[in-house]
């Protein structure tokens, strides 16, 4: 059973197009994330949603719009794609820790979507 799945795995498109990447988790987690991994393997968080509410938005161009129809899904829509958007995009999810818990959660990552903009 795939815990965090993403579709598509590969996406090749032309500059200026609009595309979406989908993410689903079957772990019952409350929080989902989108990360971007650039060509140098550097990973940076883009967005996070908790129970369908946006909680992290890290200085990402507004061409990127995340949408969470329910807490098991977090999709990423990208308008007017640019060459610099080429990267691997990872979705992740984690279970909220009880309030007052001093603990580190575990984020579970999907397999990634390799986006190539030509």
């Amino acid at each position, binding site marked *: 059973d795939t815990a*965090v799945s993403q579709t598509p795995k590969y996406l090749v498109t032309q500059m200026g197009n609009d595309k979406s990447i989908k993410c689903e988790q079957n772990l019952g987690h*409350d*929080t989902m994330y989108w990360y971007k991994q650039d060509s*140098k*393997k*550097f*990973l*940076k*968080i883009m967005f*996070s949603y*908790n129970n369908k509410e946006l*909680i*992290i938005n890290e200085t990402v161009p507004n061409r990127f719009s995340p949408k969470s129809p329910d807490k098991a899904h977090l999709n990423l829509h990208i308008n007017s794609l640019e060459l610099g958007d080429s990267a691997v995009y*990872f979705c*992740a999810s*984690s279970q*909220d*820790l*009880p*309030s*007052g*818990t*001093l*603990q*580190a*959660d*575990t*984020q*579970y*990552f*999907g*397999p*990634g979507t390799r986006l190539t903009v030509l």
Partner: protein
Amino acid sequence: AQSVTQPDIHITVSEGASLELRCNYSYGATPYLFWYVQSPGQGLQLLLKYFSGDTLVQGIKGFEAEFKRSQSSFNLRKPSVHWSDAAEYFCAVAPPVTGGYNKLIFGAGTRLAVHP
């Protein structure tokens, strides 16, 4: 600002040799600390994490890491490397929270190659 430094971009070891991957962080307080592994073409998998208590943390696949507050380090170790350990290793930090979620900040990664 919070940051994570992995000084070694690329490390090559022989199968059966010991391994140590370095990680240093910059943060006002002691953050939560993580090591993730990314196999080629795969997502990231958590190896181990530290948030309090014993400074030597055991993880999966025979890995361990030691938190050293005085050196702001969280180095990953394995006594005997297997060819299947060849992958990209990421150190990450997150500000300590009491409940909720952790916002991860990743280092640049260390690529491990294993010679037979």
